[in-house]
């Protein structure tokens, strides 16, 4: 079946979709050639997700047509997507946490023998697929017990088992470390030769360039351009994503402060251990400095900031904050000693999503802090929020709408703002740009630099190497739970080499 149109094309013409006041897709025209890897890039809100959801049957377009194998459809239903062989792997995991791996690989399409589920047959199908993506797990282990990265690969396997003709991948490597990402990218490259067209959506440009044959850039719901990868440079793509004027601003914003002499130590850590992946970490952060933490997922870098803040229990070692030795680390003590944590998982642990912007800005100042009056007023909270909205340039209709309605970048500004309100001496930023679009990223970067310039110490961990090299004054490399070396003025390639060694 897949061979009937070996060079067929999926064509989309004047596809539009509006959500309330937002034009998510604005008359999109795009041709997807068969049997290649086609990347789609763009800021959050550029319309990528909406486009993918329309193709996979999750969303009905307002107007326009989709032509597949020379048949035009006004919309694609879930049933039709299944019939046409369109499979999608979402960014968020949609797996059954309490059930085993095998059950998760065949959701609602178990193989039956009579009325009974034929697990043996399912195993036979699943094994080679798992092997091809290099995943070695027990098919009978409970999914929730596996690492997030393994879960993400299982989500991929779940889709590949269906042998889709069009496979849509939405940020497939977001939970993977470098080695796992490489393996996944290798697999994706092979898919076209097996008759699968891949639509690859990612924020990570390195990946896009290494895997895609064709790159399409979207902005404001329309196509900016679609060209073969060989004809494009990184700068072309970034310019297309952010628009000309903005891309220049980003370069400026990420420049390091020059000649700023760092002050006294705000954080001294020696021989820190926890009950997880951290074995022996020592580092210092001085006032006015941005210090980076680099390490693969699972190296301990991803647990370091939470441990320093007291959200994860420490097992040993000394932590001195602003000259004061911390015997017990806990979020309460951290608030008392003016240590701020911007957590990696903003949606789950950073914000009260359904509560107002106003309530969220007072989360630490009223909730965690013990200073000041115990009486509060709605207008008092609103005034604080209004002041912070203006200071950080949060784009929100007013301070009374739910914070869940804001974009990722603006939500992150609320998290940072709620902490800066208690004037912390040390700010721990755990992957603060996750799920934030490029435009908002550059704003966050200048904000982070501003924080450091105001005399605070900043410890910054990121999963994107380029961010570390562009903004940090010094970087600690963490490997196997040990801080192995301290570097400064390294470029991206060097740092990637250092953390992978």
């Amino acid at each position: 079946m897949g061979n009937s149109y070996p060079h067929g094309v999926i064509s989309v013409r004047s596809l539009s979709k509006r959500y309330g006041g937002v034009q998510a897709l604005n008359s999109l025209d795009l041709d997807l050639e068969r049997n290649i890897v086609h990347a789609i890039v763009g800021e959050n809100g550029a319309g990528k997700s909406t486009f993918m959801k329309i193709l996979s049957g999750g969303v009905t377009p307002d107007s326009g047509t989709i032509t597949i194998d020379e048949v035009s459809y006004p919309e694609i239903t879930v049933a039709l997507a299944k019939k046409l062989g369109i499979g999608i792997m979402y960014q968020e995991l949609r797996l059954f946490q309490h059930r085993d791996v095998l059950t998760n690989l065949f959701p609602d399409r178990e193989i039956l023998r009579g009325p009974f589920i034929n697990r043996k047959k399912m195993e036979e199908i699943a094994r080679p697929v798992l092997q091809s993506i290099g995943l070695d797990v027990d098919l009978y282990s409970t999914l929730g017990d596996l690492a997030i990265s393994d879960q993400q690969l299982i989500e991929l396997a779940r889709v590949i088992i269906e042998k889709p003709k069009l496979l849509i991948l939405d940020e497939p490597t977001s939970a993977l470390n470098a080695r796992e990402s490489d393996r996944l990218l290798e697999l994706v490259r092979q898919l076209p030769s097996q008759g699968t067209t891949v639509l690859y959506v990612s924020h990570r440009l390195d990946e896009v360039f290494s895997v895609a044959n064709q790159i399409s850039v979207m902005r404001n719901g329309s196509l900016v351009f679609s060209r073969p990868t060989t004809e494009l440079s990184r700068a072309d793509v970034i310019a297309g994503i952010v628009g000309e004027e903005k891309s220049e601003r980003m370069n400026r914003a990420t420049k390091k402060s020059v000649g700023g002499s760092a002050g006294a130590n705000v954080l001294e850590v020696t021989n820190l251990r926890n009950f997880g992946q951290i074995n022996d970490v020592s580092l210092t952060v001085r006032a006015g400095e941005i210090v980076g933490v680099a390490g693969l997922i699972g190296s301990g870098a991803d647990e370091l900031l939470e441990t320093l803040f007291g959200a994860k229990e420490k097992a040993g070692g000394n932590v001195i904050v602003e000259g004061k030795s911390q015997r017990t680390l806990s979020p309460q003590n951290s608030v008392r000693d003016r240590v701020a944590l911007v957590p990696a998982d903003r949606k789950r642990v950073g914000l009260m999503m359904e509560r107002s912007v106003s309530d969220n800005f007072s989360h630490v100042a009223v909730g965690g802090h013990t200073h000041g009056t115990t009486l509060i007023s709605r207008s008092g909270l609103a005034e604080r929020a209004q002041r912070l909205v203006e200071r950080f340039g949060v784009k929100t209709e007013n301070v009374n709408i739910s914070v869940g309605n804001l974009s990722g970048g603006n939500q992150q500004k609320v998290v940072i703002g709620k902490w800066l309100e208690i004037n912390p001496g040390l700010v721990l930023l755990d992957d603060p740009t996750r799920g934030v679009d490029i435009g908002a990223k550059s704003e966050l970067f200048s904000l982070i630099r501003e924080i450091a310039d105001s005399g605070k110490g900043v410890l910054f961990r990121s999963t994107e190497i380029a961010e570390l090299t562009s903004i940090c004054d010094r970087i600690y490399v963490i490997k196997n739970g040990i801080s192995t070396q301290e570097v400064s003025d390294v470029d991206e390639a060097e740092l990637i080499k250092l953390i992978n060694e």
Partner: protein
Amino acid sequence: MSTTPSGAKSRKRFKLPEETSVLIALIVLIGIVGALRPTFLKPVNLLNLAASYAIAALIAGCIVFLLSMGEIDLSFGWILNLSAVVAGLSMIAGIPVWIAIVLGIAAGTVMGALNGLLTVFMRLPLIIVTLGTASVFQGISLISNNSGSVVPTDKKITEHIFFRALGGSIDTPVPIILIFVLLAFVVLHLTLHKTRFGYRILAIGSNPEAARLAGIPTKKIKIQVCALMGAVSGVGGVLFLGFRGAVDPSTGGQMLLPVVAAAIIGGTPLSGGAGTVWGSLIGAMIVGVIGVGVVFIGIDAVWGTLVTGLVILFAIGVDQIVRVRKKRAI
């Protein structure tokens, strides 16, 4: 930039409080019963109705705190019972009435705090913990008076100002228990919405892990709210003793439905992170009007429970529809 603040202010419109719809529902219900049986609308009848549901209302006002925190207490009926038993037995034993009252409320506070300690240290939801403690409190109550009623009969006790005031021997235009409960509601409302304590409760209910990471002492707050729930149940028990003059072994056993129903009908979601104290007062009155109104109209009292159930389903259903609409609008 400079236009933002004034722009935001000019957009500020007068907004009806969220309790408006529940209040309208209450008025409509009273209107329906009144249209069928005009005597129902006599102020004395309405005040008596309010007085007899005042204790349930008071506890509903406090369970809003727990619901806002994402928890629910199933044991409060038996805390109320045991507190009343403690106060009553103390009086019979010759302890001065006011001190016996304090002992009763203290007993309630201790029971509530125990619920809180268990839920925090066993890391279990309060609903599970109180499923067990409810029977423990009931059991202690039964043992302490051999499954009998506690009835202070000594004139020195029954002639005490406390019993005369609550029992209706003193003529006031509005029953004293109602005045007391209304004052308690003012305090509960201000506590939940105008204090740091209240902010923390709502923050925990909204996102417990985010609350912990913001430095909120979540365990302490949980124990405190449970203790408060116990104290208010204890107050309810003491009020009951004064209002009825006796406690029998089943007192409090039938309170779970009307109290939780009052809070939910009033507009407090079970999911935590939001709550309305005044709504629960109106909700309690709705439950009361249904319970009493059914009798007034002449329908068999057995139907009261069924109607209450239907009203709960209706209230939750409307609430959910509004919520889904709001989400779609975004």
